[in-house]
């Protein structure tokens, strides 16, 4: 067994020579060269045990590395210096701390070449949040729903609560989506239409069937650009373990959260966490901050489901055309 493992370690060494990862943790390179083949990507375990969260200190790890342990062969100073070992420990500890706050999952679905869960494909919610994110009874054309808000409370400031009630009363004319305006974030996610995720090494692009909306989410470490305002905001993402975290700001304050008048200002700050729990499910958690409208941050949560229909593709819901058709009719039809 030991010779075979040695061989694997050597193969691993050869396989990763020449790969470069800019701005990665300094311990990552050593981890990849020496440890990853047996312990898996990001210490998730493979033929050797899981290393995250790391329950050992650097001195203990150093001893195990030098002397071997069980089926693990001893590793020499030449292959991995003491400093390298300490860097690897720091790397694994950084993974442990970043994973601790997030939804812990045992995702075992496909991964991209970069090691992230592969979210490519068509997704959709199965709920009635588009009509009302709170618990609500059915109305004509509106399915009932248990709501998607933690504790079912939106912590409005007093004036904002009154504004929401006014919005609700006027919702059939005041809802911006009824004018075919872009729905904003996170409303676009739970519109009752499918959307497709494209995931590359430095982008996650989401294209939506509703009004051919697009979100280009940079995962290249770039920051939000200079303040501007957008219907869909400006989205920057990063991977926290197996969770895609998307930070969105620069909203214009013109959009609603649903068709029931729940609203925000242009100070809205949205943090979405997309945590895949299997090949077919994403745990979608959204934290809403807006000090102009709410007394505290609040959270929505719902599953996203992968659409597996054969030959499925996004089609058109170009509501601009419906507005124009309606205008032509109300004009008495110009020819």
């Amino acid at each position: 067994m030991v010779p075979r493992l040695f061989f694997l370690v050597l193969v691993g060494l050869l396989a990763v020579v020449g790969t470069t990862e800019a701005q990665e943790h300094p311990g990552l390179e050593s981890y990849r060269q020496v440890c990853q083949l047996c312990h898996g990507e990001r210490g998730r375990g493979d033929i050797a045990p899981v290393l995250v969260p790391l329950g050992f200190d650097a001195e203990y790890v150093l001893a195990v590395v030098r002397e071997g342990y069980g089926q693990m062969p001893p590793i020499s100073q030449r292959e991995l210096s003491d400093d390298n070992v300490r860097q690897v420990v720091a790397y694994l500890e950084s993974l442990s701390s970043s994973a601790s706050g997030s939804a812990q999952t045992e995702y075992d679905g496909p991964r991209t070449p970069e090691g992230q869960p592969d979210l490519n494909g068509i997704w959709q919610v199965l709920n009635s949040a588009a009509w009302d994110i709170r618990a609500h009874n059915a109305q004509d054309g509106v399915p009932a729903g248990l709501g998607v808000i933690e504790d079912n409370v939106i912590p409005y400031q007093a004036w904002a609560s009154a504004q929401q009630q006014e919005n609700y009363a006027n919702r059939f004319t005041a809802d911006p989506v009824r004018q075919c305006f872009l729905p904003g974030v996170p409303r676009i996610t739970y519109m009752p239409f499918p959307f497709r995720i494209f995931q590359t090494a430095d982008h996650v692009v989401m294209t939506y069937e509703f009004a051919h909306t697009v979100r280009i989410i940079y995962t290249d470490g770039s920051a939000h650009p200079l303040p501007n305002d957008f219907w869909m905001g400006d989205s920057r993402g990063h991977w926290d373990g197996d969770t895609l975290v998307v930070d969105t700001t620069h909203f214009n304050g013109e959009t609603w959260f649903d068709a029931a008048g729940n609203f925000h200002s242009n100070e809205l700050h949205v943090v979405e966490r997309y945590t895949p729990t299997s090949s077919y499910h994403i745990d979608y958690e959204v934290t809403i901050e807006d000090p102009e409208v709410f007394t505290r941050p609040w959270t929505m949560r719902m599953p996203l489901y992968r659409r597996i229909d054969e030959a499925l593709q996004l089609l058109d819901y170009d509501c601009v055309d419906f507005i124009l058709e309606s205008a032509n009719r109300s004009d008495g039809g110009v020819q």
Partner: protein
Amino acid sequence: MIRIGLSKLATTSLVFLTCSLWVSAQESTAEFDPPRTEWGDPDFRGHYLPGQYRPLEIAADENWQPSTEGSGGNNAAFSRFFEPDPDAPPRPARLTAPMIVDPPDGKIPFQPWAAEQRNEIMVRQDELEHLDPRVKCLPSALPRAHLPVGYNTYQILQLPGYIVMLYEWNHLYRYIPLDGSPHVSPDIRLGMGDSRGRWEGNTLVIDVTNFTENTWPVGHGAPPEGAPGGALTTGHGVFHSGDLHVIERFTFVDANTISYRATIEDPNVFTEPWTIEFDALRRAPDGHMLFEYACHEGNGRGISLMTGTDLETIRLGER
């Protein structure tokens, strides 16, 4: 592996020499071998700016009157209202060859009734029904989405088995499978059509059908400044039926330039297929990004001024 190595070498030299070789590279007939993706396809990934404004058509009986001066590249009509668009398609300093390369006379082969219909459409641009669909914020359709216009840049993403094209103007996108799958049912209609792609050597060939009938297949920005109005057109008012069939060919001519060739077929409107070709995509500088172009959201007042129709009072139904 050898091929990838050579491609990288070729790219490096071309990038290094791009400035000095700009003119000759465009005229070179040798096929450029583009870099490859990790999975071996020609690598189209990146951000691109629109190509140069050029006339679509030639009116054969007009004299060509070259302009004596060109502009810096900003679309004058837009820049009255907005900050100058730094990514605007450049205007040539003089009249250039038309985009239409076939038929050889450089004119759209309209059926006679369709030529009259086009004129009718153009004189009725103050009516909502006939107004340029892009002014109404409907999808660009094709090949119009690749013709030069201000405030439109491109991003191309590639994954094994498919390509995604993102268009800044009106946040349009196309998903282009490369898996040999057939077009969607003819009952389905899509503003940007239904795209199916394949590789022919280094060329990306896309077959597009299933268009809606409410768009124009061509129609782009202004002709060169100083061009006599009757000497050329920009393709406005050209319409199509649901049988529109577009075959596109994207080919790198150098590391930073993609040639675009599109053949337009519609037996209900034209007497024969016709083809446009020009360098439609120029690689954007590092750091370029697509911004949100919310078209319809700010369009109510413009439509009201142009047509007298108040879109802002119209609401969609229950859903």
